[in-house]
């Protein structure tokens, strides 16, 4: 109860309730998350269950068209799966991969950035040259490279079984330099400040100084890039799916749905691409808006200074 009371009086909640954009974004985001994660309970069809899918139902347009079917509100895709249900399941996959990959990127990048910024010297040179090398390839190329290795190592069957964790790993490894560079740059600025010297004079160890004193002061840019990176991760996943290296067609993500429909867009079946596309845009936009608000709140200088 005490914590709840504290939360009710906090600046966090105060600024949230005073920001209509944040409230609307949060409601939409919460709605999307709830809808996607409760998909097995509330979705009208189960796109993973092949016994309920009929190829005869393929490419049925949305219900407001003459040929539409009441059973499939937003129409069906090329395999006869209900678009609405498939999008709900697909969004769940996209959110899991996006957040998981960003968490991994952030963890790797923050730790490496902190170490190379704070220790400097050879550690710094090693990690930053590694980052340079990796950034000189495109992210997608690194991801393709890693996933190709995984596919040969495990076989395609096993790969599609473990596609989600493997994609998290691939996208996570492919994008850590973004974080490492950002964090390193702010660590270099922070570690020269006198409060770090004061902490050293008190006698704290370097690990304590790095994680308790410097890290909290470098987090604002991390939050800002995290929102962009969630979008990026979803995009990378979509691109990988398009190339046949991402989510298998039997368990499509939003990205693979867009790409799936792309082949049919000129034959008139626009809904297979457009609906997942709109959903993806809303998801990314809402995450970005929430990230912006979060950045303003987490930087005490902006709100009270």
């Amino acid at each position, binding site marked *: 109860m005490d914590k709840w009371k504290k939360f009710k009086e906090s600046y966090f909640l105060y600024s949230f309730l005073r920001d209509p954009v944040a409230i609307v974004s949060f409601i939409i985001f919460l709605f999307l998350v709830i809808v996607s994660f409760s998909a097995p309970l509330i979705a009208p069809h189960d796109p993973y269950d092949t016994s309920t899918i009929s190829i005869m139902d393929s490419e049925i347009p949305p219900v407001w068209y003459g040929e539409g079917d009441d059973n499939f509100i937003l129409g069906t895709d090329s395999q006869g799966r209900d678009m609405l249900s498939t999008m709900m399941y697909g969004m769940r996959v996209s959110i899991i991969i996006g957040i998981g990959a960003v968490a991994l990127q952030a963890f790797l990048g923050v730790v490496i950035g902190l170490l190379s910024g704070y220790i400097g010297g050879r550690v710094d040179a090693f990690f930053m040259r590694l980052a340079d090398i990796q950034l000189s390839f495109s992210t997608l190329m690194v991801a393709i490279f890693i996933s190709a290795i995984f596919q040969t190592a495990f076989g395609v069957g096993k790969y599609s079984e473990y596609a989600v964790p493997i994609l998290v790993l691939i996208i996570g490894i492919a994008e850590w330099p973004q974080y490492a560079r950002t964090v390193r740059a702010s660590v270099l600025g922070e570690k020269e*400040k*006198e*409060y770090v*010297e*004061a*902490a*050293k*004079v*008190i*006698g*704290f*160890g370097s690990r304590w100084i790095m994680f308790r*004193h410097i890290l*909290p*002061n470098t987090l604002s840019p991390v939050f800002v890039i995290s929102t962009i990176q969630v979008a990026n991760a979803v995009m990378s996943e979509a691109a990988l799916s398009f190339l046949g290296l991402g989510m298998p067609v039997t368990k499509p993500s939003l990205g693979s749905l867009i790409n799936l429909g792309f082949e049919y867009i000129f034959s008139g079946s626009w809904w297979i691409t457009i609906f997942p596309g709109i959903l993806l845009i809303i998801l990314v936009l809402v995450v970005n808006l929430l990230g912006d608000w979060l950045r303003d709140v987490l930087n*005490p*200088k902006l709100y*009270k*200074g």
Partner: protein
Amino acid sequence: MHRENRLVTINKLVKKFDISGGFLDQLKIENKKIVRKKTFVHAVNDVSFTVNKGEILSVVGESGCGKSTLARVVVGLYSPWSGEIFYKDKRIDNLDGSQMLSYRKKMQMIFQDPYASLNPRMTVKKTLEEPLRFHEPSISNSEIEEKVLYVMEQVGVNPKWADRYPHEFSGGQRQRVSIARALMVDPEFIVADEPISALDVSIQAQILNLLMDARDNFGLTYMLITHDLSVVEHISTRVCVMYLGTVCEIAPVRNIFSNPLHPYTQALLSAIPKPGVKKKEHIKLKGEVPTPIVLPTGCVFHTRCLYADERCRREIPKPLSYDNGESFVACHGVEEKRI
């Protein structure tokens, strides 16, 4: 003075910074051969002195003379290139982290810029609690709370403001918090690196008085780094004058101001504006301070000294001590009694 009165002793301390950069930057061509050459900034050269218990030793000198570096070497932020630092009778410059901890408690530092010396993401309370929790893990929460409130009152910050962030305070208040942080672990020796130079003039006196009160209440010894000579005259016990990383002269404050021996001290003190003194009575030094990368041979001051002769250019002057070793001056001219 007696031996047991010594708190911190520095012996032949040298600090150089390597600025030669990477391996490829170090390669130079000399006599048609490629040689590897390192470049150093000689920040502190062969400095020895003692800080006695209860005194305020002021270190003065112009910008870039190595005052701040000296302060940071003494508290252990930088490790010395060579030389020794003693706390009471124990040599502390070669101790490892865990052995050093008990001395960390005894030696604290106050910084110049109150806007940078407090962690912006920690409330005043957290900032003050942290050192105590670290050094005395067994202490109870209520005792910590009590101590935080006590120290905050001592430095003149309202304990009601404990939950505020540093950016909600003015510069003078932040400096008070910064002093409070140093006092939390009950130190004996405080190195203050220009503690008032970033503050408004009207606040400077308050902070100085606070430092003086803290000395009486907590039994502190100060090493005060400053370039404000009127402050030095006001509060110090002894004064150490530095030029280009070298100590020119150390003497009790009254002697320094009434009878400066070293030519550099004389020039420095004549620069204090005094009412009724005509401009031409100032000693004007020629030229600029030489670069600390290539130090002048012999006495570092000879390039600008009015009395320099052949010996000054050749030979580094040895400190000439008097007054039971409490004062010394490093000058050939004084030694030869020609100044």
